[in-house]
């Protein structure tokens, strides 16, 4: 069984790309909204607010999930303790036991920012079923809409998960030997925001493939399954043998889990850190441009079936 995406709770009932109804329930503006940056900002902040409300409506079922969420962490900690005990060596690939556990906790935070359940699948569905046209006839940009929607969901998700994760990190505080200094922490925050952007635009690109192929969920499954390993969610990439470490550190996937975690742990410093952040930003921009390009190209052959 492949690991399910842990944010999927509302997936079946609220497909993420459906416009929340109350976007349109806002009081009718007395005058036609202008075209300035202010009204654009208001437009997207309305989308943001509506999505936030939608998201907070389903918080009740959180409890059982929260309890169960601790179990894999327990086995992971015990497994790595057995590995360190068995090897008889206190440091593996530059990670001591506490750092290893801290790393495995921190990738959860990375994934909180970079995982995008339903994004690519939603775009592909919009293309396939012809509902994409609502973005073409309404005065907002699809990618702009999706990113406001996604930021709202992320905020709600992070807010609702803050309690269980806060508890988890509190219980595991012993594994964090030092808290990073201000600069490192700022770099960590930046790397998380960039992780969100890399994850978002990467999935947008995958979704755009739907213009050319009717069925992208299969491609998506394969990508997501591979991503679980090559982004460093299961173990720090440094533990892998060459040439895999080098290859995987060239790919964008490490920024969705591995990179922010090692930044927090202070494993990447100085110029290396700057270079890493720049590369992460470059991947985000690269995927953004590619996504736009594919969207333009795709719209030319899009024929709005159905709907």
């Amino acid at each position: 069984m492949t690991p399910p995406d842990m944010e999927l709770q509302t997936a079946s009932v609220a497909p993420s790309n459906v416009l929340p109804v109350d976007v349109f329930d806002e009081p009718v503006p007395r005058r036609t909204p202008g075209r300035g940056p202010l009204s654009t900002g208001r437009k997207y902040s309305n989308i943001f607010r509506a999505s936030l409300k939608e998201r907070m409506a389903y918080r009740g079922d959180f409890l059982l999930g929260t309890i169960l969420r601790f179990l894999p962490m327990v086995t992971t900690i015990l497994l790595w303790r057995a590995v360190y005990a068995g090897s008889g060596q206190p440091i593996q690939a530059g990670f001591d036991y506490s750092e290893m556990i801290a790393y495995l906790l921190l990738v959860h935070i990375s994934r909180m920012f970079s995982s995008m359940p339903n994004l690519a699948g939603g775009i592909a569905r919009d293309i396939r079923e012809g509902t994409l046209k609502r973005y073409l006839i309404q005065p907002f940009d699809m990618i702009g809409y999706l990113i406001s929607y996604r930021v709202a969901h992320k905020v709600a998700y992070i807010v609702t998960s803050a309690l269980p994760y806060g508890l988890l990190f509190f219980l595991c505080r012993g594994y964090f030997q030092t808290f990073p200094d201000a600069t490192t922490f700022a770099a960590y925050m930046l790397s998380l925001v960039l992780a969100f952007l890399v994850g978002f635009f990467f999935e947008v690109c995958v979704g755009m493939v739907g213009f050319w192929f009717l069925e992208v969920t299969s491609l998506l499954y394969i990508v997501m399954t591979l991503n679980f390993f090559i982004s460093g969610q299961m173990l720090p990439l440094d533990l892998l043998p060459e040439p895999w470490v080098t290859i995987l550190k060239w790919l964008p996937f490490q920024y969705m889990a591995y990179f922010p975690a090692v930044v927090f742990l202070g494993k990447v410093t100085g110029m290396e850190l700057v270079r890493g952040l720049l590369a992460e930003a470059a991947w985000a921009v690269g995927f953004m441009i590619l996504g736009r390009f594919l969207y333009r190209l795709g719209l030319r052959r899009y024929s709005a079936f159905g709907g």
Partner: protein
Amino acid sequence: MRILAKYLRLLGSLARFTLAREMAFRGNFLVKVSVEVIWLGIMLAFYETIFGRTKVLAGWRKDEFLFFVGCFFALNGLIEMLFLENCNDFAELVRTGDLDFLLIRPIDEQFLITCRRVDWATAPNVLMGAAVMGIALARMHWQFDPVRVMAFLATFACGTAIAYSFMLVLTAFSVWMVRNQSLMEMWWLFSSLARYPKEIFLGSRAEPLGFLFTFILPILLVANVPANAMVRTLNPPMVGFTLFATAILLWASRKFFQHALRSYRSASS
């Protein structure tokens, strides 16, 4: 006996029907299978990486642990193939009220709800897991021992039944918690307990947990006992306890499920 035969026949027809349906979308089937192959590859890469660092993991040697990995993969594959998708659908049946259409049929509700469809795409997992176990046995030059094989087969079946019972209880919760998180996710989280040998539960804080999950909520018996019986020490009291726990759990989970069904209020039909 006639009832058992009837249900077996029914299961056969359902399996044939779902196979025919699955074969109508062969491409989809192949993709699902290849995702599972990739996943097994990832598990093995993880295993190799770990044993690149240590020779023994909580008393399990490399080949023994490989057998454990195969055993868990096969067992989980069997669970997924027979039950997971059906149980996953249950929350939606409750939410929409479509459960009514299943309850009015003259068949046992638990059977109909949990065995309606066979997910053929995960059937190869059982074979892949068996292949991994076979490789592990060959590597350790395992001597054929009919007693061990019998014990393995029996406890493997028990492990499947224990996992099924736990899944049934998790499924039943969705009667009260409409729209709960997908069972798929809950099952992934819960079954992570069974993914590793129970010997890793070591130390003053972990041992009570190990005890809890061995004797009270015995999810740790699932892959541990069959793998132990086959490649490590065959411990007859443990095998006996597993048989006993299986019977208790099957009974208790059924009672719980029936209790949950009585609380079902057929809301939206």
